[in-house]
């Protein structure tokens, strides 16, 4: 296997690494690997998939579909397969992944490593709850894990620390086709926004929030509800790219305010229903490749927390801080989560989750620190897929099953060969 000295980064491009990377494509390549942490498409914003100075295994080309049982809907895939490709291939034939994150570029291995959630978390739970089996390579030795075992729970959301995930069997969900019927409603303020999310009975529900709106408008946004459907629609293949790093005024305050105002008002006051291709509903940003370059060279951070249902007021207070700071970007999402989670380190808890991007600037980092403290006070949790700034002790305290995870990880990787920058930064395995 060829190891290439490579400079690489998390999706936010604020945290970077340099080290040797191998990219297996075949079983023979896998057999020739040394023990090193895996990465998927590095859609995690921070350092979950980085290993500075050490080696890393890029699994994104180990991506074949291996087998499908049309009776049971069980799909066996290699870990580098992208969730969006799976959806595109299967939806026309009546099946789709039960849970999909907001980017179709995420690999199956990455979806497991973070136990990701989708717009249907309130009724479908997390990704790992639909995994029937995973195959791991633990220091060259193959192991399988199935639901109910400690190894399985340590692997779902386990940040790749229990071994290299080579293959997984996913329980797919029946669907009608590759279209989505999407209803968009305006929420004029925070209370209306929460009420729409609480009252939604749709299969897929998510709120876009205008994090620049203040005063009486604070919390306003668009609540999107989606149902799957079948039909015919012209689709375009191909994508746009951002050819270079944008100058840092590209997302300056007036630009964002204007954008958000227009984005809000594009939906008529009485709402509307439209038909969209499946990919456009689930992966709205994927049409613009490398959109992370819009934040310029310095990159950006995403803050995502979840707080218990009873702590909605705390979340509102966070939004007030954000709106007051003038630092928010247009990408801000509010969602009601259900209790579903599959692993010891899974992010979800029943409550409300807020995700929002900030440019990587001193004021933004200070604000994020403040939001993190507010999350802790509210009994909430931060997401390893997004984090790049948290304090180890604070974030570890948000994961009550951390010790169970540590015990399994110690067995699976006694040498600590799979530790990543995130694991070291937050002392996840050692504290």
């Amino acid at each position, binding site marked *: 296997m060829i190891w290439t000295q490579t400079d690489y980064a998390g999706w936010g491009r604020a945290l970077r690494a340099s080290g040797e990377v191998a990219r297996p494509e*075949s079983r023979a390549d896998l057999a020739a690997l040394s023990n090193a942490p895996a990465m998927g498409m590095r859609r995690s914003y921070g350092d979950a998939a980085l290993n500075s100075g050490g080696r890393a295994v890029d699994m994104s080309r180990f991506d074949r579909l291996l087998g499908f049982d049309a009776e049971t809907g069980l799909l066996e895939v290699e870990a580098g397969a992208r969730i969006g490709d799976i959806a595109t291939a299967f939806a026309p034939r009546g099946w789709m992944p039960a849970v999909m994150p907001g980017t179709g570029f995420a690999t199956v291995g990455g979806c497991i490593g973070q136990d990701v959630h989708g717009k249907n978390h309130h009724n479908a739970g997390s990704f790992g709850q639909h995994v029937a089996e995973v195959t791991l390579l633990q220091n060259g030795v193959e192991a399988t894990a199935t639901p109910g075992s400690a190894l399985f729970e340590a692997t779902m959301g386990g940040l790749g620390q229990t071994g290299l995930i080579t293959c997984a069997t996913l329980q797919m969900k029946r669907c009608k086709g590759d279209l989505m019927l999407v209803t968009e409603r305006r929420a004029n303020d925070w209370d209306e926004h929460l009420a729409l999310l609480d009252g939604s009975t749709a299969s897929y529900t998510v709120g876009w929030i205008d994090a620049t709106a203040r005063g009486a408008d604070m919390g306003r946004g668009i609540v999107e509800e989606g149902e799957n459907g079948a039909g015919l629609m012209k689709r375009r293949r191909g994508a746009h790219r951002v050819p270079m790093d944008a100058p840092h005024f590209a997302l300056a305050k007036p630009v964002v305010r204007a954008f958000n105002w227009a984005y809000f008002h594009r939906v008529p006051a009485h709402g509307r229903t439209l038909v969209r291709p499946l990919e456009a509903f689930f992966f709205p940003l994927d049409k613009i490749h490398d959109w992370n370059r819009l934040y310029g060279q310095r990159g950006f951070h995403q803050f995502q927390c979840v707080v218990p249902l009873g702590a909605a007021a705390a979340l509102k207070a966070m939004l007030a801080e954000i709106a007051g700071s003038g630092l928010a970007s247009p990408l801000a999402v509010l969602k009601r989560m259900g209790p579903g989670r599959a692993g010891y380190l899974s992010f979800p808890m029943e409550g409300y989750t807020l995700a929002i991007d900030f440019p990587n600037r001193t004021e933004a980092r200070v604000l994020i620190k403040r939001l993190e403290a507010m999350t802790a006070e509210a009994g909430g949790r931060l997401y390893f897929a997004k984090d790049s700034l948290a304090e180890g002790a604070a974030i570890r305290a948000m994961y009550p099953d951390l010790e169970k995870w540590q015990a399994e990880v110690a067995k699976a990787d006694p040498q600590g060969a799979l530790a990543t920058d995130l694991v070291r930064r937050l002392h996840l395995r050692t504290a």
Partner: protein
Amino acid sequence: MNSWIILGATSGMARPFIRRLAESGAQLFLAGRRMEELEALAADCRLRGAPKAEVMAFDARDPANYAALIDRFVQEEGTLNAAVFAGSMPEQAQIDATPELIEGVIADSFTGPATFLQMLVPEMETRGAGTVMGIASVAGDRGRLGNYVYGAAKAAFATYLSGLRNRAGRKGVHVITVKPGPVDTPMTQGMKMPFMTTPDAVADDLMRAIEKKRNVVYTARIWQVIMTVIRLIPEPVFKKLSI
């Protein structure tokens, strides 16, 4: 029904293209040397929508078995198409040390594929339809210090394709010459190269080339400009450059 035979189907550059064909509902005949890899790819293609995906043992250096593969392929009704990804690129230094390697490079990249196509194309002409897509290389546009044997083989293949286009086009068979610049595959891993593109982007270009019936396609497209410039450099100057 649309059927494609792919020579060198396990090549890193080919995988996303083959998947696009599978999604488009084409029948696939995947030919190459690594059978286990071919089987896995065929299963992948069936799951992505190919009504049929069969594997074939193909070694460019063993023309004796070409006829059997072609006999099997032409049993399919409808439009027949062929894509050639086969080829090999040992380091120039290796070739300098062992000049006999040249024969293999020429066989993998030129004489093998050309012989195969020469045997297949008459049947395509009889049916009056189909596409031949041959992967040549920007390396064939000018003999450069770093890989001139590989470049020579690809230049020969490109010239062959040009002639084949001229001939088969008269009978409804369209021939596309593809000249990729560096593509991020295992073949180029570890090399620092400018304007590197990805197999996914190449696949997009190839699908467009088939749809638009293009004759010669550079991918990434910038290489058309670069190679035009490089071809214009006068030989007395060029021979002193190490580009």
